[in-house]
């Protein structure tokens, strides 16, 4: 599919906050399937997702969502938003509402006007995120992970064609993350799903495509396996940290996981992970990214 007919087509998109360049000349298209956005803090992931979610406008370049320019007219942005589900990075919740009440409120905003159908849909998305039994509990009494899932549920209302999730796995325990992966992979069969995360294992487990952003620019865009392949032969297990390694750390076995640089004496090549490949792609930014992940 080319840019003109893609669900999301970004051409030379730029965005600044004062003197800070958040995005610089980004060209990307997204279609059905799950795409993971990786990048260190401040790489521009959230800005990119907010532009795709129609929350903010780009300063330059062309943005087309579902074939429309979302900022051309009120009708265009409304048409896009009818097919959009968005989980922002930081979502607050009305303290007086239950999980069901909040999702129902968003469902009404998303034009689910028939009460019976709306209730069914709210129950469906609560079921999808594993919160069916907590539907009548006030959100203020839910745990952080459960609140995050409430946020995810509201993004899933109406099976939108375009789903934008900013760090959906934050605050989730491993079992919840596994559930979320199941939900999102099913969604990816019929929708375009963009998600940002610091968890490379989520991207490895879920996404067929990965985009690495750093300093507002695309450093890598391709299949997850292709990104991992770039690290083959550049990762070792060694008895000592590599002197010129990009990053290295002592593992639970007592040996050092060495990424990049020259192999230390006695090092054994090991199968690279997505995280290794991601760190190598970032290059000099890797220390910062590794510290933040």
């Amino acid at each position: 599919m080319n840019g003109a007919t893609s669900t999301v087509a970004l051409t030379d998109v730029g965005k600044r906050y004062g003197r800070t360049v958040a995005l610089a000349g980004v060209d990307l298209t997204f279609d059905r399937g799950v795409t993971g956005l990786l990048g260190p803090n401040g790489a521009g992931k959230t800005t990119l997702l907010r532009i795709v979610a129609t929350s903010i406008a780009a300063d330059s370049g062309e943005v087309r969502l579902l074939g429309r320019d979302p900022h051309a007219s009120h009708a265009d942005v409304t048409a896009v938003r009818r097919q959009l589900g968005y989980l922002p990075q930081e979502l607050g919740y009305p303290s007086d509402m239950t999980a069901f009440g909040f999702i129902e409120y968003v469902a009404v905003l998303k034009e689910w006007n028939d009460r019976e159908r709306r209730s069914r849909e709210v129950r469906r998305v609560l079921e999808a995120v594993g919160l069916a039994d907590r539907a009548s509990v006030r959100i203020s009494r839910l745990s952080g992970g459960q609140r995050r899932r409430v946020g995810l549920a509201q993004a899933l209302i109406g099976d939108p064609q375009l789903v934008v999730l900013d760090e959906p796995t934050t605050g989730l325990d491993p079992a919840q993350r596994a559930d979320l992966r199941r939900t999102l992979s099913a969604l990816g069969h019929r929708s375009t799903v963009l998600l940002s995360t610091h968890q490379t294992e989520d991207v490895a487990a879920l996404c067929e495509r990965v985009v690495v952003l750093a300093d507002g620019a695309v450093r890598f865009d391709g299949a997850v396996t292709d990104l991992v392949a770039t690290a083959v032969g550049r990762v070792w297990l060694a008895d000592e940290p590599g002197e010129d390694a990009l990053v290295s750390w002592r593992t639970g076995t007592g040996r050092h996981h060495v990424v990049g640089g020259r192999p230390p004496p006695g090092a054994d090549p090991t199968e690279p992970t997505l995280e290794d490949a991601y760190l190598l792609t970032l290059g000099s930014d890797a220390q910062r990214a590794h510290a933040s992940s």
Partner: protein
Amino acid sequence: MSSLSLPASGLAGQRAMAVIEARRMARHPVFLLGVTLGFVVLGLYFVLVDDETGVPVVLTLPILGAFYIGLTTVIAAALLTRSTEVAIEAVATAPGTEARRTLALAAAGIPPFVAGVVFSAALVVAATVIGVAPQEWWFGTLPDWQVWSIVLMCPVACLDGALLGVLTGRWLRFRGASAIVVVALIAVTLLGQAPLLDTHGSEWRLWVPWALFHTGDNPDGTQTLIAGNPAAYLGYLLALGALAVLAAMWHDRSARTPRFRALVAAVALVALAFFALAVTTGNPDNRISDPIPSRVTR
């Protein structure tokens, strides 16, 4: 299509949103506290105030409902308005605009309005059952429409309280804003009319959001009915409420279409017209009742 013109499906959505907002208000603890206080104080008044001739100064009692229910409703509505804004990024990327959400929030005024109607009904029923002094400004000494207009100021004030709360929630984002608005409202109401009540120009007090029409008992046992047309004043209060909603919707830049500006101007003109009617028609001067012997204090 402007952000305010609603297709049929939009109207259904607006209704659904309005139902949600009305329910949220009906369950809001601050509103429930106000309603409880209002009815408890009214009940205590009937039980504790002892007068052989019946319920005293009954036409001043709507202020109890306006005070306890109306003022707490300002706070409750402001809190409701602010509460969904914590989820603003998710909410704002749904198809509906902020102006439509604000319009739906106006429905939060329904429970306070109903509470005010029940309060006024309780007042009328109790006064009818217990009785009032024949000299009281009440049915019999005043035209029925004037009595009903003054009694119905209570539910209208409760409704307006909610609409003022929505306006406050939309525009004032600092902590305690609604409490400050309540204090300002009381100050404006008192200072805006107190100097005028005993003058020949007392009808000019009617610009304030709660105008007194009845002084209560004077020391010589009489009561003063203050000049003006209470029915037109009710219309003025309703127009002020509508203006509050429009001003809250004005917060959404996308709503400021030429049609919307014309609507604001039209409602402002209606408010002015009702004010002019309230000032120029009805009772032209303050009226003094016959003295009620049991109320003479000097």
